[in-house]
């Protein structure tokens, strides 16, 4: 009983904060808004630690909170499943969220929407916690859509910016495409299992899987588990931004940087990864679905990485890197290394939040200029940001002993050991991805923190305003120089928001910004070393994640190769992965520090390739023309052609005209002249007589 109250407290504490800050955002002072929300999240974080201790002591929980709905033979409940997987997610979510809350005090300092922002991020924390703590599909879907809502609200936080409100609508709709698959998957689960409760579904799955197939295309039959898993995974593709539903994530960078870190890097986008890991007992039953997962994941991992190479907006580089890393996690899921995916999810949450918050710190230091071509040499002016960003980058590229090394290396090894169709391609993709990741990460790092100081040189003000305006005109394609803090004020030309003026120097950010950086840098270094043994090879996830080690022996074989975290790191220098990453860093150093003329030459030499990458493989253009344009055209056609033209024009007006015509005809007979009537009568008599005479 005691524990159940604690479980409830974890999501409710941030919710209370969100409600207070939200409902009274116009009356309470700023310190009160951030105090209540931070207190709420801090409570959630602390209680999560307590629950973690409890779970480690062997106390898991699965039970209802209240009955949401009953209908027919079905029951829907809101309830919690507290196990190792849940509590891992709870810790990641609450701790990153807490750091982001603190950081926001500094980042949003000048923003008129300060209180509203705190309300939203606490509401997000609540929604995300409900999602991960759920014990059934219905509540999962609740949390799933609720985090989507908050993401929508936060991407469009600066609602006067056309690019922001374009991006948030796009994000919501693309996610809805995923949810479309997701809800059909849930529908199949309910139809065939009769319940949406995880435990009951998982228990029943093996017996149903062996015999049940469903007719989808006429006579063509699909195994039930394949259909369910692929539909559920389509939901994950939306939320976790897998190709081709990835298009919303780069645009989501229109939101303020703290939420890019919290929602679009560390937590919400990993909801899909979490969901598939949670559904491991179902996915294990369909090799087809797993192959699908692997292929989608590897395409995302590699091809989104390429796009990171040509970005010049600091946040967009990190965004593409997030897409690529989400692809890695998805690949891990596909090869049945669910625990490795969750492990990478955790390490990634810390170092990617760190990188985003670091980027945000740079943006503050640069007075809201986000173009890395205008930076350089910042390490002198922003030492804490510099060191922590370096740590984040090293973790991201998989430097031995750093967090990212353990998780990413395990993914690559797992892929190498897999025999699933598609894993060959996946191995190539994740290996090539290592090089690409190292290259774009250090390209950004060198351009921002080292080399020539390029800021304050051009008469910035005029230029960035011009670019921002051009961006507004072309709505969304512009990814050059959005200023991040250009907000709700009507005054578009507030000068100090647009980068450094000549002679101005960047400055280190206040402690509320740098403290979270330091706090996140610590796990970015150590969490992999600490976590790998218990999480991947111990019993930690034994209860939460199911692997059919007969059919998919990847994890078992991986365990054979593992001889301790220290040995793994020292052994790494003899592997190709390490040298690929090293090569990536070296090449970026050579190209951007030593010979900056070469990238320009490559750009003009391979113009077609550059255009392809610059247009992000034309996904946006295609969607714009075919889906958005097509839907509008279809709607207009149906409206003008079907409703106004056919139904109202022909049928309704036709009926009216018919009545009018009939009465006009009838009126002809009512002339009022007696001889007309007499004549008609005579003709009538004549006709009747004729009929009578000829009747025989």
């Amino acid at each position, binding site marked *: 009983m005691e524990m159940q109250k604690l479980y409830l407290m974890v999501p409710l504490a941030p919710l209370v904060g969100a409600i207070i800050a939200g409902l009274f955002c116009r009356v309470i002072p700023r310190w009160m808004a951030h105090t209540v929300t931070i207190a709420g999240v801090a409570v959630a974080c602390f209680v999560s630690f307590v629950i973690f201790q409890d779970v480690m002591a062997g106390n898991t929980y699965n039970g209802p909170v209240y009955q*949401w709905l009953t209908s027919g033979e079905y029951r829907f409940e809101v309830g919690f499943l507290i196990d190792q997987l849940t509590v891992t997610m709870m810790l990641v979510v609450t701790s990153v969220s807490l750091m982001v809350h603190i950081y926001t005090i500094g980042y949003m300092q000048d923003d008129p929407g300060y209180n509203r922002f705190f309300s939203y991020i606490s509401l997000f924390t609540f929604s995300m916690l409900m999602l991960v703590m759920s014990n059934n599909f219905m509540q999962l879907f609740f949390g799933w859509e609720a985090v989507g809502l908050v993401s929508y609200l936060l991407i469009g936080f600066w609602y006067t910016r056309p690019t922001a409100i374009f991006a948030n609508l796009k994000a919501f709709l693309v996610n809805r495409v995923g949810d479309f698959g997701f809800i*059909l998957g849930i529908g199949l689960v309910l139809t065939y299992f009769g319940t949406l409760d995880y435990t009951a579904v998982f228990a029943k799955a093996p017996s149903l899987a062996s015999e049940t197939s469903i007719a989808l295309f006429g006579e063509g039959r699909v195994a039930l588990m394949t259909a369910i898993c692929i539909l559920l995974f389509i939901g994950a593709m939306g939320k976790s931004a897998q190709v081709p539903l990835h298009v919303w994530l780069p645009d989501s960078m229109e939101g303020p940087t703290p939420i890019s870190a919290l929602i679009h890097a560390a937590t919400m986008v990993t909801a899909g990864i979490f969901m598939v890991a949670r559904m491991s007992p179902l996915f294990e039953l369909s090799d087809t679905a797993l192959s699908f997962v692997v292929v989608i994941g590897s395409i995302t991992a590699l091809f989104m990485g390429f796009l990171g190479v040509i970005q010049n907006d600091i946040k967009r580089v990190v965004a593409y890197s997030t897409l690529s890393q989400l692809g890695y996690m998805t690949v891990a899921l596909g090869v049945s290394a669910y625990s490795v995916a969750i492990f990478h999810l955790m390490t990634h949450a810390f170092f990617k939040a760190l990188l985003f918050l670091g980027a945000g710190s740079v943006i503050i230091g640069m007075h809201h200029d986000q173009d890395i071509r205008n930076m350089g040499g910042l390490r002198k002016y922003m030492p804490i940001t510099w060191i922590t960003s370096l740590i984040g980058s090293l973790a991201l590229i998989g430097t031995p002993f750093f967090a990212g090394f353990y998780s990413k290396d395990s993914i690559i090894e797992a892929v190498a050991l897999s025999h699933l169709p598609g894993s060959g391609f996946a191995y190539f993709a994740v290996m090539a991805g290592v090089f690409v990741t190292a290259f774009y990460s250090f390209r950004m790092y060198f351009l921002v923190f080292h080399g020539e100081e390029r800021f304050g040189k051009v008469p910035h003000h005029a230029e960035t305003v011009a670019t921002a305006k051009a961006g507004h005109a072309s709505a969304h394609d512009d990814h050059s120089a959005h200023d991040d803090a250009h907000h709700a004020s009507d005054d578009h030309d507030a000068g100090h928001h647009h980068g450094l003026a000549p002679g101005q120097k960047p400055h280190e950010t206040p402690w509320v910004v740098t403290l979270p950086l330091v706090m996140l840098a610590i796990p970015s270094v150590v969490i992999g070393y600490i976590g790998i043994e218990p999480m991947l090879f111990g019993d930690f996830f034994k209860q939460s994640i199911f692997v059919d080690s007969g059919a998919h022996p990847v994890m078992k074989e991986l365990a054979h190769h593992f001889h301790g975290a220290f040995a793994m790191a020292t052994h790494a220098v003899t592997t190709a992965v390490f040298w690929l990453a090293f090569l990536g860093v070296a090449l970026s150093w050579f190209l951007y520090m030593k010979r900056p003329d070469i990238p320009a030459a490559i750009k003009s030499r391979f113009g077609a390739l550059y255009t392809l990458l610059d247009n992000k493989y034309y996904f946006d253009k295609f969607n714009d023309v075919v889906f958005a344009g097509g839907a509008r055209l279809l709607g207009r056609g149906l*409206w003008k052609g079907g409703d106004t033209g056919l139904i109202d024009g022909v049928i309704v007006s036709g009926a009216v005209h018919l009545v009018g015509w009939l009465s006009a005809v009838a009126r002809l007979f009512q002339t009022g002249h007696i001889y007309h009537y007499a004549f008609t009568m005579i003709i009538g008599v004549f006709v009747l007589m004729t009929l009578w005479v000829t009747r025989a």
Partner: protein
Amino acid sequence: MSGTPLLSLAIWVPILAGLLVLATGSDRNAPLARMLSLLGAVAGLLVTIPLYTGFDMHTPAMQFVELKSWIPSFNVNYHLGVDGISMLFVILNSFITVTVVLAGWQVIDSKVAQYNAGFLIMSGLLNGIFSALDGLLFYVFFEASLIPLYLIIGIWGGPNRVYAAFKFFLFTLLGSLLFLLALIYMYLKSGGSFSILDWHQMPLGMAPQTWLFLAFLVAFAVKVPMWPVHTWLPDAHVEAPTGGSIVLAAIALKLGAYGFLRFSLPIAPDASHQLAGLVIALSLIAIIYIGFVALAQEDMKKLVAYSSIAHMGFVTLGFFIFSAMGIEGALVQMISHGFVSGAMFFSIGVMYDRAHSRQIADYGGVVNKMPKFAAFFMLFAMANAGLPATSGFVGEFMVILAAVGYNFWIAFAAATTMVVGAAYTLWMYKRVVFGAVANHHVAELADINAREFFIFVLFALGALGMGLYPQPFTEVMHSSVNELLRHVALSKIQ
């Protein structure tokens, strides 16, 4: 409590209040008329509360039954009663009447007494429809309720109100005539009974069932409205005053759907099964075709009107997949739509009162001037798009899930509303509310006042309450819905 004729009160309290308001006469007494109307509406709501609190959810039988002879020579009775299907609509209707009276408080300033009396009388008549158990009594209420709405559109409506009022009246009258023929047929066939419950038990061959079903279908499809007899609705909404739109969307559209459950399914069960495919096809057309049409709208009221048609498509779809979750989901969708579409039309009315335009293109950046309004409008837009934790989600979720069990591809088609519904609602929201202040009309907008705030809170409580905890709404339906399904599963052909 058992002796109190609650249903009669629910019908006659608003009607008598309406007559009393009418007696205040000219606009000199407008403040008195408003106050009396509000008192009447609130009293009307209060007398319906015991219908819920005193409801026995374990029986499918009619409750709070009143039976008195009305026209003995034709065996017509004043026969009232509600079950789990109809009870909530009586309460919803009485609730909506309160919001409508409040919505017109400062806005309507000519013929105030007549305007409010119209709504109060209509409220009573609508309650009569939901509680009548005598076929002729039902028909009288059904037809009489057209008159106040016709007058409200025709007198307090927009510039094209006469066209809209006529179109509305003629469309619905067309359906009603067939319905009357069906009633007379059943009266004769049953040996002189107008009791709806008798008709439920009456054996019928396949051919008469089919004809009856088609007559009902035309009558109710016009009301719902279903494609292709829906084109009167956008016109009626565009011309109707805000209060008229709220009642039209929240209650009047439910009459047709209610008719399916009270007449079509139980009286012609075999034909219902036989022709389910037809209704399902029309429902899917409503969901998909109308969804796309809504996307193309330039007038906010038309957009919401079209979205109403699409949402009602879920209702008829839910009925005709013959499962408890489908029917209950459809009923939930009907109630939810009462809150959500009512609130959407009210939101548009709030903007129209200030800027005198409903064109999306005339707005932009409303949030800068009306942040409180924008927050409420966001809530209802999300509810309209079926976001979980709002009532809009519950019905869609139940119907889609039930449809998967019936046929995967039907569910697939219905689920497209997840994307299309979000697209038309949020795209409109984006163009109207977000962005920089678009023009001087927007710049002059003032945020909502206390009265408007209060109305929004009422709607929000409904939409959120039902979304977070729908169980109190569905548990009263179970017995009646299960009994209906049991009944519909039995053939009437002898």
